[in-house]
Protein backbone atom coordinates (compact mmCIF):
# COMPACT_ATOMS: atom_id res chain seq x y z
CA UNK A 1 0.00 0.00 0.00
CA UNK A 2 2.65 2.49 1.09
CA UNK A 3 6.30 1.97 0.26
CA UNK A 4 8.86 4.50 1.51
CA UNK A 5 12.50 3.97 0.62
CA UNK A 6 15.68 5.80 1.62
CA UNK A 7 14.05 9.06 2.56
CA UNK A 8 16.14 11.93 3.87
CA UNK A 9 14.96 15.35 4.95
CA UNK A 10 17.27 18.20 5.87
CA UNK A 11 15.78 21.52 6.92
CA UNK A 12 17.65 24.74 6.11
CA UNK A 13 20.50 22.96 4.33
CA UNK A 14 23.77 24.85 4.13
CA UNK A 15 22.92 27.25 6.96
CA UNK A 16 23.80 27.29 10.64
CA UNK A 17 20.27 26.07 11.29
CA UNK A 18 20.77 22.96 9.19
CA UNK A 19 18.81 20.12 10.73
CA UNK A 20 18.52 16.59 9.45
CA UNK A 21 15.03 15.52 10.48
CA UNK A 22 14.87 12.19 8.65
CA UNK A 23 17.73 9.91 7.80
CA UNK A 24 17.47 6.95 5.44
CA UNK A 25 13.92 6.27 6.49
CA UNK A 26 12.22 3.21 5.10
CA UNK A 27 8.71 1.96 5.81
CA UNK A 28 6.32 -0.41 4.14
CA UNK A 29 2.64 -0.63 5.02
CA UNK A 30 0.20 -3.33 4.00
CA UNK A 31 -3.33 -2.56 3.06
CA UNK A 32 -5.41 -2.34 6.23
CA UNK A 33 -2.46 -1.69 8.54
CA UNK A 34 -3.30 0.61 11.43
CA UNK A 35 0.09 1.75 12.63
CA UNK A 36 0.75 3.81 15.75
CA UNK A 37 3.89 5.96 15.79
CA UNK A 38 5.73 7.03 18.94
CA UNK A 39 9.04 8.75 19.64
CA UNK A 40 10.68 11.58 21.54
CA UNK A 41 10.46 15.30 20.77
CA UNK A 42 11.93 16.05 17.40
CA UNK A 43 12.23 12.38 16.44
CA UNK A 44 10.83 13.19 13.00
CA UNK A 45 7.28 11.81 13.33
CA UNK A 46 5.53 14.88 11.99
CA UNK A 47 8.17 15.31 9.32
CA UNK A 48 7.58 11.75 8.13
CA UNK A 49 3.84 12.36 7.83
CA UNK A 50 4.40 15.70 6.11
CA UNK A 51 6.72 14.11 3.58
CA UNK A 52 4.19 11.40 2.82
CA UNK A 53 1.50 14.07 2.39
CA UNK A 54 3.81 16.18 0.24
CA UNK A 55 3.89 19.27 2.46
CA UNK A 56 7.63 19.32 1.79
CA UNK A 57 9.64 17.49 -0.82
CA UNK A 58 12.22 15.03 0.48
CA UNK A 59 15.93 15.60 -0.15
CA UNK A 60 16.97 14.78 -3.67
CA UNK A 61 18.88 11.58 -2.96
CA UNK A 62 19.28 8.74 -5.46
CA UNK A 63 16.98 5.85 -4.59
CA UNK A 64 14.53 7.94 -2.54
CA UNK A 65 10.94 7.11 -3.28
CA UNK A 66 7.45 7.26 -1.87
CA UNK A 67 5.07 4.88 -3.63
CA UNK A 68 1.40 4.80 -2.76
CA UNK A 69 -0.66 1.90 -4.03
CA UNK A 70 1.62 1.48 -7.04
CA UNK A 71 1.84 5.20 -7.87
CA UNK A 72 5.15 6.95 -7.40
CA UNK A 73 4.21 10.23 -5.72
CA UNK A 74 7.73 11.32 -4.72
CA UNK A 75 7.66 14.37 -6.98
CA UNK A 76 3.96 15.16 -6.79
CA UNK A 77 2.83 18.35 -5.06
CA UNK A 78 0.69 18.16 -1.95
CA UNK A 79 -2.60 18.98 -3.64
CA UNK A 80 -2.12 16.19 -6.18
CA UNK A 81 -1.36 13.57 -3.54
CA UNK A 82 -4.52 14.59 -1.70
CA UNK A 83 -6.50 12.24 -3.93
CA UNK A 84 -5.02 9.35 -1.96
CA UNK A 85 -4.93 10.76 1.53
CA UNK A 86 -7.07 11.90 4.39
CA UNK A 87 -5.34 13.94 7.09
CA UNK A 88 -6.11 15.16 10.58
CA UNK A 89 -3.74 17.57 12.26
CA UNK A 90 -2.82 18.27 15.85
CA UNK A 91 -4.23 21.78 15.63
CA UNK A 92 -8.04 21.66 15.34
CA UNK A 93 -7.88 24.99 13.46
CA UNK A 94 -5.81 23.47 10.70
CA UNK A 95 -8.22 20.94 9.27
CA UNK A 96 -11.33 23.05 8.69
CA UNK A 97 -12.23 26.45 7.26
CA UNK A 98 -13.57 28.41 10.24
CA UNK A 99 -15.44 31.05 8.28
CA UNK A 100 -17.37 28.55 6.20
CA UNK A 101 -20.40 26.48 7.08
CA UNK A 102 -20.17 22.89 8.30
CA UNK A 103 -21.81 21.68 5.11
CA UNK A 104 -19.53 23.79 2.94
CA UNK A 105 -16.52 22.23 4.64
CA UNK A 106 -17.96 18.78 4.04
CA UNK A 107 -18.65 19.64 0.40
CA UNK A 108 -15.00 20.62 0.07
CA UNK A 109 -13.97 17.25 1.51
CA UNK A 110 -16.49 15.39 -0.63
CA UNK A 111 -14.63 16.59 -3.73
CA UNK A 112 -11.21 15.38 -2.61
CA UNK A 113 -9.43 13.97 -5.63
CA UNK A 114 -12.15 15.19 -8.00
CA UNK A 115 -11.94 17.93 -10.60
CA UNK A 116 -13.65 21.12 -9.53
CA UNK A 117 -15.62 23.01 -12.11
CA UNK A 118 -18.50 25.42 -12.37
CA UNK A 119 -21.10 23.07 -10.99
CA UNK A 120 -22.83 24.24 -7.81
CA UNK A 121 -20.50 23.77 -4.85
CA UNK A 122 -22.99 21.74 -2.83
CA UNK A 123 -26.06 19.82 -3.97
CA UNK A 124 -29.24 18.81 -2.17
CA UNK A 125 -28.35 15.11 -2.32
CA UNK A 126 -24.98 15.87 -0.78
CA UNK A 127 -26.66 17.73 2.05
CA UNK A 128 -28.69 14.60 2.76
CA UNK A 129 -25.57 12.46 2.74
CA UNK A 130 -23.80 14.88 5.08
CA UNK A 131 -26.80 14.90 7.39
CA UNK A 132 -26.63 11.12 7.74
CA UNK A 133 -22.86 11.09 8.22
CA UNK A 134 -22.99 13.82 10.87
CA UNK A 135 -25.69 11.94 12.75
CA UNK A 136 -23.29 9.04 13.21
CA UNK A 137 -20.93 11.32 15.13
CA UNK A 138 -23.63 11.78 17.76
CA UNK A 139 -22.72 15.41 18.40
CA UNK A 140 -25.89 16.97 17.05
CA UNK A 141 -23.97 18.66 14.26
CA UNK A 142 -26.51 17.38 11.74
CA UNK A 143 -28.89 20.05 13.01
CA UNK A 144 -26.36 22.84 12.61
CA UNK A 145 -25.15 22.16 9.11
CA UNK A 146 -25.25 25.80 8.07
CA UNK A 147 -23.44 27.07 11.16
CA UNK A 148 -19.93 28.39 10.74
CA UNK A 149 -17.28 25.86 11.77
CA UNK A 150 -15.55 28.58 13.81
CA UNK A 151 -18.35 28.27 16.36
CA UNK A 152 -17.54 24.64 17.14
CA UNK A 153 -15.40 23.46 20.07
CA UNK A 154 -11.98 21.92 19.45
CA UNK A 155 -13.35 18.42 19.95
CA UNK A 156 -16.27 19.01 17.59
CA UNK A 157 -13.89 20.40 15.01
CA UNK A 158 -11.59 17.39 15.29
CA UNK A 159 -14.54 15.03 14.93
CA UNK A 160 -15.64 16.97 11.86
CA UNK A 161 -12.11 16.93 10.43
CA UNK A 162 -11.96 13.18 10.95
CA UNK A 163 -15.26 12.79 9.16
CA UNK A 164 -14.02 15.04 6.35
CA UNK A 165 -10.75 13.12 6.03
CA UNK A 166 -12.63 9.85 5.63
CA UNK A 167 -15.69 11.10 3.74
CA UNK A 168 -14.18 9.77 0.53
CA UNK A 169 -12.41 6.58 1.57
CA UNK A 170 -8.70 7.47 1.56
CA UNK A 171 -6.03 4.98 0.60
CA UNK A 172 -4.08 6.28 3.55
CA UNK A 173 -5.19 8.14 6.67
CA UNK A 174 -2.55 10.32 8.37
CA UNK A 175 -3.21 11.35 11.96
CA UNK A 176 -0.62 13.55 13.64
CA UNK A 177 -1.32 13.73 17.37
CA UNK A 178 -4.86 14.64 16.47
CA UNK A 179 -6.07 14.37 20.06
CA UNK A 180 -3.15 16.20 21.69
CA UNK A 181 -4.88 19.58 21.84
CA UNK A 182 -8.04 18.21 23.45
CA UNK A 183 -9.01 17.64 27.06
CA UNK A 184 -8.63 14.01 28.21
CA UNK A 185 -12.29 13.08 27.93
CA UNK A 186 -12.74 14.58 24.47
CA UNK A 187 -9.42 13.04 23.39
CA UNK A 188 -10.73 9.64 24.43
CA UNK A 189 -13.93 10.11 22.44
CA UNK A 190 -12.08 11.22 19.32
CA UNK A 191 -9.71 8.29 19.66
CA UNK A 192 -12.49 5.72 19.88
CA UNK A 193 -14.23 7.44 16.97
CA UNK A 194 -10.98 7.08 15.04
CA UNK A 195 -10.78 3.41 15.91
CA UNK A 196 -14.40 2.93 14.88
CA UNK A 197 -13.96 4.58 11.49
CA UNK A 198 -10.63 2.90 10.72
CA UNK A 199 -11.98 -0.59 11.47
CA UNK A 200 -15.41 0.03 9.88
CA UNK A 201 -13.90 1.18 6.57
CA UNK A 202 -10.78 -1.04 6.94
CA UNK A 203 -8.53 1.95 6.34
CA UNK A 204 -4.76 1.97 6.19
CA UNK A 205 -3.64 4.50 8.78
CA UNK A 206 -0.59 6.06 10.41
CA UNK A 207 -1.35 7.57 13.80
CA UNK A 208 1.24 9.56 15.75
CA UNK A 209 0.50 9.66 19.45
CA UNK A 210 2.37 10.70 22.57
CA UNK A 211 0.35 8.32 24.68
CA UNK A 212 2.18 4.98 24.95
CA UNK A 213 -0.89 3.17 26.22
CA UNK A 214 -2.94 4.34 23.25
CA UNK A 215 -0.09 3.34 20.97
CA UNK A 216 -0.26 -0.17 22.37
CA UNK A 217 -4.04 -0.39 22.62
CA UNK A 218 -4.87 0.76 19.10
CA UNK A 219 -3.77 -0.60 15.76
CA UNK A 220 -2.06 -3.77 14.65
CA UNK A 221 1.45 -2.40 14.41
CA UNK A 222 3.64 0.03 16.35
CA UNK A 223 6.75 1.88 15.24
CA UNK A 224 9.12 3.89 17.40
CA UNK A 225 11.21 6.68 15.91
CA UNK A 226 14.40 8.31 17.07
CA UNK A 227 16.60 10.87 15.37
CA UNK A 228 14.89 10.54 12.06
CA UNK A 229 14.81 6.76 11.75
CA UNK A 230 12.61 3.90 12.82
CA UNK A 231 14.30 2.10 15.70
CA UNK A 232 11.60 -0.38 16.63
CA UNK A 233 8.83 -1.97 14.62
CA UNK A 234 6.47 -4.51 16.11
CA UNK A 235 3.16 -5.98 15.01
CA UNK A 236 0.60 -8.71 15.57
CA UNK A 237 0.59 -10.79 18.73
CA UNK A 238 3.92 -9.42 19.85
CA UNK A 239 2.52 -5.90 19.83
CA UNK A 240 -0.56 -6.85 21.81
CA UNK A 241 1.64 -8.28 24.57
CA UNK A 242 3.70 -5.07 24.90
CA UNK A 243 3.76 -3.10 28.11
CA UNK A 244 4.82 0.52 28.54
CA UNK A 245 7.97 -0.68 30.36
CA UNK A 246 8.94 -2.79 27.34
CA UNK A 247 8.74 0.27 25.12
CA UNK A 248 10.89 2.32 27.48
CA UNK A 249 13.48 -0.45 27.64
CA UNK A 250 13.47 -0.85 23.86
CA UNK A 251 14.08 2.83 23.47
CA UNK A 252 17.04 2.80 25.83
CA UNK A 253 18.54 -0.21 24.09
CA UNK A 254 18.24 1.30 20.65
CA UNK A 255 19.22 4.88 21.40
CA UNK A 256 21.30 4.67 24.55
CA UNK A 257 19.22 7.41 26.14
CA UNK A 258 16.01 7.76 28.04
CA UNK A 259 12.84 8.37 26.10
CA UNK A 260 12.01 12.02 26.56
CA UNK A 261 8.92 13.69 25.27
CA UNK A 262 7.47 16.49 27.31
CA UNK A 263 4.00 15.44 26.34
CA UNK A 264 4.61 11.70 26.76
CA UNK A 265 2.15 10.04 29.06
CA UNK A 266 3.71 7.08 30.76
CA UNK A 267 0.82 6.15 32.97
Amino acid sequence: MLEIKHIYKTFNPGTVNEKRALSNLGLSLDSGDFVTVIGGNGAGKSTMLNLIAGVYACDNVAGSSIVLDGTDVTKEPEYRRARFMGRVFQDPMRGTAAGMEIQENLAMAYRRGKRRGLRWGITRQEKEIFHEKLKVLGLGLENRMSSKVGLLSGGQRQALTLLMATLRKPKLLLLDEHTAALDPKTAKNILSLTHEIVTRDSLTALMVTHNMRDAIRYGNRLIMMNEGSIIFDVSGEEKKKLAVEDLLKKFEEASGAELANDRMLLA
Partner: protein
Amino acid sequence: MSFLLTMGNAAAQGVLWSIMTLGVYLTFRLLNFADMTVDGSFATGGAVAAVAVNGGMNPLLALLLSLLAGIACGAVTGFLNTKLKIPALLAGILTMIALYSINIRILGGPNVSLVNVRTVFSAVPGSPMGSTFLVGALTAALMVALMYWFFGTEVGSSIRATGDNEYMVRAFGVNTNTMVMIGLMISNGLVALSGGLIAENQGYGDANMGIGTIVIGLASLIIGEVLFGNRFNFVYKLCSVIVGSILYRMIIGFVLFLGLESSDLKLLTAIVVAVALSVPVIVKKFPGKAAAVNTVEKSEDAGADASK
Protein backbone atom coordinates in the same frame (compact mmCIF):
# COMPACT_ATOMS: atom_id res chain seq x y z
CA MET B 1 -24.90 73.65 -7.77
CA SER B 2 -27.66 72.72 -5.39
CA PHE B 3 -26.94 70.45 -2.47
CA LEU B 4 -29.33 67.75 -3.65
CA LEU B 5 -27.86 67.70 -7.11
CA THR B 6 -24.34 67.41 -5.66
CA MET B 7 -25.44 64.50 -3.52
CA GLY B 8 -27.28 62.85 -6.39
CA ASN B 9 -24.27 63.09 -8.64
CA ALA B 10 -22.01 61.78 -5.90
CA ALA B 11 -24.29 58.81 -5.36
CA ALA B 12 -24.37 58.05 -9.08
CA GLN B 13 -20.58 58.16 -9.17
CA GLY B 14 -20.56 55.84 -6.19
CA VAL B 15 -22.44 53.20 -8.14
CA LEU B 16 -19.74 53.22 -10.82
CA TRP B 17 -17.00 53.01 -8.20
CA SER B 18 -18.79 50.17 -6.42
CA ILE B 19 -17.74 47.78 -9.20
CA MET B 20 -14.16 48.49 -8.14
CA THR B 21 -15.05 47.92 -4.49
CA LEU B 22 -16.50 44.52 -5.39
CA GLY B 23 -13.06 43.63 -6.73
CA VAL B 24 -11.35 44.87 -3.58
CA TYR B 25 -13.86 42.91 -1.48
CA LEU B 26 -12.95 39.78 -3.43
CA THR B 27 -9.22 39.98 -2.73
CA PHE B 28 -9.21 41.52 0.73
CA ARG B 29 -12.15 39.67 2.23
CA LEU B 30 -12.74 36.46 0.29
CA LEU B 31 -9.22 35.60 -0.81
CA ASN B 32 -7.48 37.29 2.13
CA PHE B 33 -4.90 38.75 -0.26
CA ALA B 34 -3.90 42.40 0.22
CA ASP B 35 -3.76 43.26 -3.46
CA MET B 36 -2.23 46.62 -4.32
CA THR B 37 -2.48 46.11 -8.08
CA VAL B 38 -5.77 48.03 -7.98
CA ASP B 39 -4.28 51.54 -8.30
CA GLY B 40 -2.67 50.44 -11.56
CA SER B 41 -5.40 48.25 -12.99
CA PHE B 42 -8.09 50.87 -12.38
CA ALA B 43 -6.18 53.38 -14.53
CA THR B 44 -5.45 50.65 -17.07
CA GLY B 45 -9.18 50.06 -17.40
CA GLY B 46 -9.74 53.78 -17.85
CA ALA B 47 -6.91 54.15 -20.35
CA VAL B 48 -8.00 51.19 -22.44
CA ALA B 49 -11.63 52.34 -22.60
CA ALA B 50 -10.66 55.94 -23.43
CA VAL B 51 -8.31 54.96 -26.23
CA ALA B 52 -10.68 52.34 -27.62
CA VAL B 53 -13.68 54.68 -27.65
CA ASN B 54 -11.64 57.44 -29.25
CA GLY B 55 -10.53 54.96 -31.87
CA GLY B 56 -14.15 54.42 -32.80
CA MET B 57 -14.85 51.21 -30.95
CA ASN B 58 -18.30 50.46 -29.64
CA PRO B 59 -18.28 51.87 -26.06
CA LEU B 60 -19.68 48.63 -24.66
CA LEU B 61 -16.96 46.59 -26.35
CA ALA B 62 -14.44 49.09 -25.04
CA LEU B 63 -15.58 48.24 -21.52
CA LEU B 64 -15.16 44.56 -22.26
CA LEU B 65 -11.63 45.36 -23.36
CA SER B 66 -11.05 47.17 -20.05
CA LEU B 67 -12.25 44.10 -18.21
CA LEU B 68 -9.87 41.86 -20.15
CA ALA B 69 -6.98 44.26 -19.55
CA GLY B 70 -7.72 44.13 -15.82
CA ILE B 71 -7.77 40.34 -15.89
CA ALA B 72 -4.31 40.43 -17.45
CA CYS B 73 -3.08 42.81 -14.72
CA GLY B 74 -4.35 40.40 -12.07
CA ALA B 75 -2.59 37.54 -13.82
CA VAL B 76 0.73 39.39 -13.59
CA THR B 77 0.39 39.89 -9.83
CA GLY B 78 -0.72 36.26 -9.52
CA PHE B 79 2.33 35.11 -11.44
CA LEU B 80 4.70 37.18 -9.30
CA ASN B 81 3.14 35.85 -6.12
CA THR B 82 2.43 32.19 -6.84
CA LYS B 83 5.21 31.31 -9.27
CA LEU B 84 8.02 33.67 -8.26
CA LYS B 85 7.03 33.56 -4.58
CA ILE B 86 7.10 37.34 -4.14
CA PRO B 87 5.06 38.32 -1.05
CA ALA B 88 1.49 39.40 -1.84
CA LEU B 89 1.88 43.04 -0.89
CA LEU B 90 5.08 43.51 -2.89
CA ALA B 91 3.79 41.57 -5.90
CA GLY B 92 0.83 43.95 -6.12
CA ILE B 93 2.97 47.04 -5.69
CA LEU B 94 5.35 45.91 -8.43
CA THR B 95 2.51 45.40 -10.89
CA MET B 96 0.98 48.71 -9.89
CA ILE B 97 4.20 50.61 -10.53
CA ALA B 98 4.82 48.82 -13.81
CA LEU B 99 1.29 49.63 -14.91
CA TYR B 100 1.89 53.34 -14.42
CA SER B 101 4.38 53.29 -17.30
CA ILE B 102 2.22 50.94 -19.34
CA ASN B 103 -0.85 53.14 -18.90
CA ILE B 104 1.03 56.16 -20.29
CA ARG B 105 2.03 53.99 -23.25
CA ILE B 106 -1.58 52.97 -23.78
CA LEU B 107 -2.76 56.58 -23.59
CA GLY B 108 0.16 57.81 -25.67
CA GLY B 109 0.60 60.57 -23.10
CA PRO B 110 -0.54 61.45 -19.58
CA ASN B 111 -4.21 61.61 -20.60
CA VAL B 112 -6.72 61.29 -23.41
CA SER B 113 -9.96 63.25 -23.70
CA LEU B 114 -13.06 61.84 -25.31
CA VAL B 115 -14.31 64.47 -27.73
CA ASN B 116 -17.75 64.17 -29.20
CA VAL B 117 -17.83 60.43 -29.08
CA ARG B 118 -20.53 58.06 -28.05
CA THR B 119 -20.14 56.43 -24.62
CA VAL B 120 -22.32 53.90 -22.83
CA PHE B 121 -23.78 56.87 -20.99
CA SER B 122 -24.61 59.00 -24.01
CA ALA B 123 -26.35 55.95 -25.46
CA VAL B 124 -28.88 56.15 -22.63
CA PRO B 125 -31.48 58.92 -22.87
CA GLY B 126 -32.03 61.27 -19.95
CA SER B 127 -29.95 63.51 -17.75
CA PRO B 128 -26.26 62.71 -17.18
CA MET B 129 -27.04 61.81 -13.60
CA GLY B 130 -29.88 59.53 -14.61
CA SER B 131 -27.86 57.71 -17.24
CA THR B 132 -24.94 57.32 -14.85
CA PHE B 133 -27.29 55.78 -12.30
CA LEU B 134 -28.90 53.50 -14.83
CA VAL B 135 -25.70 52.18 -16.40
CA GLY B 136 -24.03 51.86 -12.99
CA ALA B 137 -26.96 50.07 -11.39
CA LEU B 138 -27.32 47.64 -14.29
CA THR B 139 -23.61 46.82 -14.24
CA ALA B 140 -23.52 46.50 -10.46
CA ALA B 141 -26.59 44.23 -10.44
CA LEU B 142 -25.08 42.06 -13.15
CA MET B 143 -21.76 41.80 -11.29
CA VAL B 144 -23.45 40.97 -7.98
CA ALA B 145 -25.48 38.26 -9.70
CA LEU B 146 -22.36 36.84 -11.38
CA MET B 147 -20.37 36.91 -8.16
CA TYR B 148 -23.20 35.27 -6.26
CA TRP B 149 -23.31 32.50 -8.82
CA PHE B 150 -19.55 32.08 -9.17
CA PHE B 151 -18.76 31.94 -5.47
CA GLY B 152 -21.38 29.25 -5.06
CA THR B 153 -19.73 26.97 -7.60
CA GLU B 154 -17.05 24.41 -6.82
CA VAL B 155 -14.23 26.66 -7.99
CA GLY B 156 -15.71 29.71 -6.26
CA SER B 157 -16.11 27.80 -2.98
CA SER B 158 -12.51 26.67 -3.30
CA ILE B 159 -11.39 30.28 -3.68
CA ARG B 160 -13.31 31.27 -0.56
CA ALA B 161 -11.87 28.30 1.30
CA THR B 162 -8.35 29.23 0.15
CA GLY B 163 -8.83 32.64 1.74
CA ASP B 164 -10.00 30.95 4.90
CA ASN B 165 -7.53 28.08 5.37
CA GLU B 166 -5.16 27.24 2.57
CA TYR B 167 -3.69 24.22 4.39
CA MET B 168 -7.07 22.59 4.58
CA VAL B 169 -7.83 23.37 0.97
CA ARG B 170 -4.58 21.79 -0.24
CA ALA B 171 -5.22 18.75 1.91
CA PHE B 172 -8.44 18.30 -0.03
CA GLY B 173 -6.75 18.44 -3.39
CA VAL B 174 -7.09 22.04 -4.51
CA ASN B 175 -4.17 23.86 -6.10
CA THR B 176 -4.25 26.99 -3.97
CA ASN B 177 -1.95 28.83 -6.39
CA THR B 178 -4.54 28.45 -9.12
CA MET B 179 -7.25 29.76 -6.78
CA VAL B 180 -5.17 32.84 -5.90
CA MET B 181 -4.55 33.40 -9.61
CA ILE B 182 -8.23 33.17 -10.56
CA GLY B 183 -9.24 35.41 -7.65
CA LEU B 184 -6.74 38.10 -8.60
CA MET B 185 -7.78 37.98 -12.25
CA ILE B 186 -11.49 38.38 -11.51
CA SER B 187 -10.85 41.09 -8.94
CA ASN B 188 -8.69 43.23 -11.22
CA GLY B 189 -11.10 42.62 -14.07
CA LEU B 190 -13.83 44.23 -11.96
CA VAL B 191 -11.53 47.07 -10.95
CA ALA B 192 -10.56 47.82 -14.55
CA LEU B 193 -14.18 47.63 -15.67
CA SER B 194 -14.97 50.25 -13.06
CA GLY B 195 -12.05 52.36 -14.34
CA GLY B 196 -13.42 52.06 -17.87
CA LEU B 197 -16.86 53.19 -16.74
CA ILE B 198 -15.39 56.17 -14.92
CA ALA B 199 -13.31 57.17 -17.95
CA GLU B 200 -16.33 57.03 -20.25
CA ASN B 201 -18.39 58.87 -17.68
CA GLN B 202 -15.98 61.72 -16.98
CA GLY B 203 -14.93 61.95 -20.61
CA TYR B 204 -11.23 61.27 -20.27
CA GLY B 205 -8.70 58.66 -19.35
CA ASP B 206 -5.78 59.72 -17.18
CA ALA B 207 -2.63 57.92 -16.06
CA ASN B 208 -3.18 59.37 -12.59
CA MET B 209 -6.82 58.42 -12.23
CA GLY B 210 -5.93 55.27 -10.26
CA ILE B 211 -3.94 56.90 -7.48
CA GLY B 212 -5.51 56.07 -4.14
CA THR B 213 -8.06 53.65 -5.59
CA ILE B 214 -7.15 50.91 -3.16
CA VAL B 215 -7.73 53.20 -0.19
CA ILE B 216 -11.05 54.36 -1.63
CA GLY B 217 -12.01 50.71 -2.09
CA LEU B 218 -11.09 49.86 1.48
CA ALA B 219 -12.88 52.91 2.83
CA SER B 220 -16.05 51.99 0.93
CA LEU B 221 -15.77 48.38 2.02
CA ILE B 222 -15.35 49.31 5.66
CA ILE B 223 -18.14 51.88 5.63
CA GLY B 224 -20.45 49.14 4.32
CA GLU B 225 -19.27 46.69 6.94
CA VAL B 226 -19.52 49.10 9.84
CA LEU B 227 -23.06 50.06 8.90
CA PHE B 228 -24.40 46.67 7.88
CA GLY B 229 -22.39 44.43 10.18
CA ASN B 230 -20.98 41.10 9.13
CA ARG B 231 -24.29 39.33 8.93
CA PHE B 232 -26.62 37.46 6.71
CA ASN B 233 -25.88 35.93 3.39
CA PHE B 234 -23.52 36.61 0.57
CA VAL B 235 -25.83 38.79 -1.52
CA TYR B 236 -26.40 40.98 1.51
CA LYS B 237 -22.64 41.40 1.89
CA LEU B 238 -22.17 42.25 -1.77
CA CYS B 239 -24.94 44.83 -1.49
CA SER B 240 -23.35 46.33 1.61
CA VAL B 241 -20.21 46.78 -0.49
CA ILE B 242 -22.18 48.74 -3.05
CA VAL B 243 -24.00 50.87 -0.50
CA GLY B 244 -20.65 51.54 1.20
CA SER B 245 -19.24 52.82 -2.10
CA ILE B 246 -22.20 55.10 -2.65
CA LEU B 247 -21.98 56.46 0.90
CA TYR B 248 -18.28 57.06 0.52
CA ARG B 249 -18.88 59.21 -2.57
CA MET B 250 -21.66 61.07 -0.78
CA ILE B 251 -19.41 61.82 2.19
CA ILE B 252 -16.79 63.13 -0.23
CA GLY B 253 -19.43 65.12 -2.11
CA PHE B 254 -20.62 66.58 1.16
CA VAL B 255 -17.23 67.83 2.31
CA LEU B 256 -16.53 69.25 -1.13
CA PHE B 257 -19.85 71.03 -0.89
CA LEU B 258 -18.69 72.46 2.42
CA GLY B 259 -15.78 74.01 0.56
CA LEU B 260 -12.83 71.63 0.91
CA GLU B 261 -10.44 71.40 -2.03
CA SER B 262 -10.48 68.20 -4.04
CA SER B 263 -6.77 67.89 -3.28
CA ASP B 264 -7.77 67.41 0.38
CA LEU B 265 -9.70 64.26 -0.46
CA LYS B 266 -6.80 61.84 -0.15
CA LEU B 267 -6.17 63.02 3.40
CA LEU B 268 -9.85 62.73 4.18
CA THR B 269 -10.06 59.22 2.74
CA ALA B 270 -7.08 58.11 4.79
CA ILE B 271 -8.76 59.50 7.91
CA VAL B 272 -12.02 57.72 7.10
CA VAL B 273 -10.20 54.40 6.73
CA ALA B 274 -8.12 54.89 9.87
CA VAL B 275 -11.21 55.80 11.91
CA ALA B 276 -13.27 52.94 10.55
CA LEU B 277 -10.47 50.44 11.15
CA SER B 278 -10.04 51.61 14.71
CA VAL B 279 -13.70 51.02 15.56
CA PRO B 280 -13.01 47.56 17.09
CA VAL B 281 -10.24 49.02 19.26
CA ILE B 282 -12.44 51.86 20.41
CA VAL B 283 -15.32 49.51 21.11
CA LYS B 284 -13.04 47.36 23.28
CA LYS B 285 -12.26 50.36 25.45
CA PHE B 286 -15.96 50.82 26.20
CA PRO B 287 -17.33 47.58 27.65
CA GLY B 288 -20.93 48.76 27.28
CA LYS B 289 -20.55 48.83 23.55
CA ALA B 290 -18.61 45.59 23.47
CA ALA B 291 -21.81 43.76 24.35
CA ALA B 292 -23.39 45.18 21.24
CA VAL B 293 -20.55 43.81 19.15
CA ASN B 294 -21.02 40.40 20.70
CA THR B 295 -24.63 40.37 19.68
CA VAL B 296 -23.54 41.18 16.17
CA GLU B 297 -21.23 38.18 16.21
CA LYS B 298 -23.94 35.93 17.54
CA SER B 299 -26.44 37.06 15.00
CA GLU B 300 -23.82 36.20 12.42
CA ASP B 301 -24.35 32.58 13.38
CA ALA B 302 -28.09 32.95 13.30
CA GLY B 303 -27.77 34.68 9.98
CA ALA B 304 -25.57 31.93 8.63
CA ASP B 305 -28.57 29.61 8.68
CA ALA B 306 -30.37 31.95 6.38
CA SER B 307 -27.51 31.98 3.91
CA LYS B 308 -27.37 29.65 0.97
